[in-house]
């Protein structure tokens, strides 16, 4: 029996060492998987969307092996800083508050306005009930604008709230709202808000090396026009 335990322990140590050696090449990419066209789960349950294509291409250029992980939006930053994955690539706008906690690569989409989607076109957004996803730049903007804010954990619920009349309009990235507006029923308002500093990849502040690798990869995609092509393919933002 003792021998058995010893053998198992030795085996575990050996595999542990082998795994440790192979590390350094696997980068875990954290995303939300609920924000089409940026990132969503396809019919097979795999991560898909603009950021999937972008992330895979960046990893290829930086010669990294990447693995996709989905995580709740609410706890996406705490789990990054505690090391459960290595990057956040989830349509996260670069803001000063977030930048104080984590680091961002250079933006991979330019700063774009946010849009309102409402039941009718005559909603006055300064004095009505606006839905927003918790911990987003849009929710922070509504909270400061003087309109009433109702927060929801997922983007889907913000749309549901407008459909159900719980909120008068929802404020979110235009690219997320456009496919929904295209289905009819809800209408896009003329008014847009210029908030956010572009979307970038989030990394731990101590991970300077990885950040440099992704910065370089993003730059190379900007230079050869492949980033613009991806943006146009998924219709997520304006191009550079």
């Amino acid at each position, binding site marked *: 029996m003792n021998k058995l335990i010893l053998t198992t322990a030795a085996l575990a140590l050996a595999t542990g060492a082998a795994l440790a050696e192979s590390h350094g090449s696997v980068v875990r990419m954290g995303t939300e998987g609920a924000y089409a066209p940026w990132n969503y789960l396809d019919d097979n349950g795999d991560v898909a969307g603009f950021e999937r294509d972008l992330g895979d291409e960046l990893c290829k250029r930086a010669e990294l092996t990447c693995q996709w992980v989905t995580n709740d939006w609410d706890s996406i930053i705490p789990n990054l800083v505690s*090391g459960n994955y290595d990057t956040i690539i989830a349509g996260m706008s670069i803001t000063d508050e977030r930048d104080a906690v984590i680091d961002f690569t250079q933006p991979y989409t330019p700063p774009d306005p946010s849009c309102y989607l409402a039941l009718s076109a005559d909603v006055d957004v300064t004095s009505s009930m606006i839905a927003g996803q918790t911990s987003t730049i849009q929710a922070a903007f509504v909270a400061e604008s003087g309109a009433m804010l109702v927060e929801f954990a997922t983007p889907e619920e913000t749309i549901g709230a407008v459909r159900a009349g719980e909120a008068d309009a929802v404020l979110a990235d235009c690219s997320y709202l456009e496919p929904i507006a295209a289905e009819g029923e809800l209408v896009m308002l003329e008014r847009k808000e210029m908030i956010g500093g572009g979307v970038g990849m989030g990394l731990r502040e101590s991970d300077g090396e990885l950040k440099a690798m992704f910065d370089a990869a993003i730059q190379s995609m900007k230079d050869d026009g492949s980033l613009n092509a991806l943006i146009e393919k998924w219709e997520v933002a304006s191009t550079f």
Partner: protein
Amino acid sequence: MLESCADPSGLEGLSWLLCYLTTGKHIAFYASFGTVALLLAITAPLALSFGFAGAAAARSRFLPVSLIGKTYTSIVRGVPDIAFFLFFVIALDQAFEFVRHKVKCPDWPDAIRQGNDFVVCDAAKLPLSSSPQWVHETYGFMLAVLTFAIVFGAFAANVLYGAMKAVPRAQIETAEAYGMSHAQAFWRILVPQMWVYALPGLGNLWMILIKATPLLFLLGVEDIVYWARELGGTKQARFTDFPHGNWLVYYFGALLVFYLFVTWGSEKVLARVMRRLSHGQATAGGEALRRAGA
């Protein structure tokens, strides 16, 4: 995926539905029922043993042990579940990694805490970054089980502590009069008799545990409620082969049936256990059984 489902745009009615219900995502949804069942099957006995240990400790005549037992139950019961599941789990994970870091990388030059970051050497990561996804998921699942066990163990400890007190003092006195030691009286007299008092409280905890599984997603474990929400949400034609409107009501309806079914089954089982435990007990239930038998 079935072969006839390769091009779902041409399908209609039942064949569409059949294809829709067998997408990879739906298979993951069905599998998550297994995840939840497994979680309950492991957590319930584990939480019960945590509870038993807590209650026994709280009763101890040795002050430090009793203090540990009482502190455990009061602190865990006082902290909101969501805070526990958001922060305790991350702290637990970091504690494991911290210990592994100290053992495996004693010569590491950098600090572990760098500002907001928690950085340990690669070999100390749990699981290692290079491990396949299922290892990460299993690890998340184990953390979930442990956290659930600690939280529900504290409530169970309180229930069991009360149940131990409810056993008539005369029973223990009789045991001692027969010459049993303190430990013997505890194991042979108190423990067998306390379950009948503990069962209603434990039954409630079980019901709450069944419905607490959505907290799993905070730990990255995808449970039935997560998948129901994901599948039921509006799907636009651009992003799926099976576009549909907001079907949350159907998916949550299915979950409702599932939960009602589990609750109904649990009540049946609990009623049977209660009947068994009441046999020969000096309680109203035991007395009713005695009369019925007489």
